[in-house]
């Protein structure tokens, strides 16, 4: 489902007032976090060129909060963006003079603004494009063509799509063996969650997320999936209030600590 701007507006208000009927709201209407940000900016008539990242970040986080509270399935990408915005917000609210990485917050704001404007641009031209007259609807080709043999190569028709589709069919038909890929074990988020909880318990210093990933995984895909699962699991733990996460700049390691929460 997709919300109109007004519906969204109402939702935002409702989330603030916290006296609402449960709505069957989902994030399905949005094509990812940037799209959601754009939508929020539009709802609050925020001019993208004079973007207040702080305001927008607050709204995004509020919205995310609301969605999570309402038990709406929030995809990892929304959480990742949420994490970044939370980081950004803290940077903007508490500028730390001693922190050399403050620049990265500005860079990020700038990039974010660019991405939003670019996606907005795409959405605008997309409308322009599909508002054009279209063949077969507004203008027409010859309805009853006569066929000359311009060069008699074209007595058969086959498109590139037909061709690669045919090849795709052969591959899927024959490659029952491809299913050997099935042997790759992906590291599940549940496993990562259990593992992280065990390892982080009682640790009161900041530790690199990468150090929590099992070192004995040989398979590259599995290693990657372990990384991804641990990251998602760490976000989950933040959400549940078990740990703190921080990353000082884009290139820096993601650190986590359970200092504040001694008992899990």
């Amino acid at each position, binding site marked *: 489902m997709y919300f109109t701007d007004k519906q969204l507006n109402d939702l935002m208000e409702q989330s603030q007032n916290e006296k609402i009927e449960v709505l069957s709201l989902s994030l399905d209407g949005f094509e990812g976090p940037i799209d959601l940000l754009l939508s929020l900016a539009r709802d609050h008539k925020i001019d993208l060129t004079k973007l207040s990242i702080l305001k927008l970040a607050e709204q995004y986080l509020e919205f995310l909060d609301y969605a999570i509270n309402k038990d709406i399935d929030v995809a990892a990408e929304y959480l990742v963006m949420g994490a970044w915005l939370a980081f950004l917000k803290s940077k903007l609210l508490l500028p730390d003079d001693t922190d050399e990485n403050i620049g990265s917050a500005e860079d990020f704001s700038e990039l974010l603004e660019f991405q939003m404007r670019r996606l907005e641009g795409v959405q605008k031209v997309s409308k322009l494009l599909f508002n054009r007259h279209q063949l077969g609807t507004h203008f027409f080709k010859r309805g009853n063509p006569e066929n000359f043999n311009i060069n008699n190569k*074209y007595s058969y028709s086959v498109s590139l799509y037909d061709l690669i589709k045919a090849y795709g069919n052969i591959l899927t038909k024959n490659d029952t063996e491809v299913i050997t890929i099935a042997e790759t074990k992906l590291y599940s988020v549940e496993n990562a969650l259990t593992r992280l909880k065990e390892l982080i318990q009682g640790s009161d210093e900041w530790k690199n997320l990468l150090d929590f990933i099992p070192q004995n995984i040989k398979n590259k895909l599995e290693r990657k999936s372990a990384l991804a699962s641990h990251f998602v699991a760490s976000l989950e733990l933040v959400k549940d209030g078990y740990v703190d996460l921080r990353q000082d700049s884009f290139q820096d390691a993601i650190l986590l600590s359970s200092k504040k929460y001694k008992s899990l």
Partner: protein
Amino acid sequence: MDNNKKKVNEIEFSFKEKIIEALIFASSEPISYNDLKNKINDEDLLNQILESLEIQYSSRGVNLLKINNTFAFRTSSEISEFLNIEKVVPKPLSRAATETLSIIAYHQPITRSEIENIRGVSLSRGTLDVLLELGWIQPGQRRSTPGNPLTWKTSNLFLDHFGLKEIKDLPGIDDLKNAGLLDKNKIIFNDETLSNE
């Protein structure tokens, strides 16, 4: 006053003429006088328009033909003789031929028996012939394996027809997968992964 009226009429005539012309052009079969009349609601005007169109197109490469009270544009017979008009209805390439072509494209140079191996069925004689006739494949070098089998590869005409610059610009397996053209790629989610839970 009279002059103005005449001008308005001319504009209207020209506008309605365009509509009739476009209708006849876009119609998938000869369009009947009645259908045209329903568009115009003025038989006199329609008759005038049809006459005017017929005259205008009479000396062109395409003529307006009236057949049993239906109307259609047809190539002038003067030209059609010269152009060898053949009523070829383009037909889709057979599945065998399409598959064979795709295998040659992705695996070239490839021998006949290798093609059969991939498709899992033997290649009927006509299949390669059709592709050869279309000019999309050509013989490559012979293999230096016993029997020196002939290999097949795609031609420049093939690249032209499919709008490719080079053969390596064909989407690869990953691209096919990502485009959703390989249906079975739920692979990573199947039995073992699931049974782990």
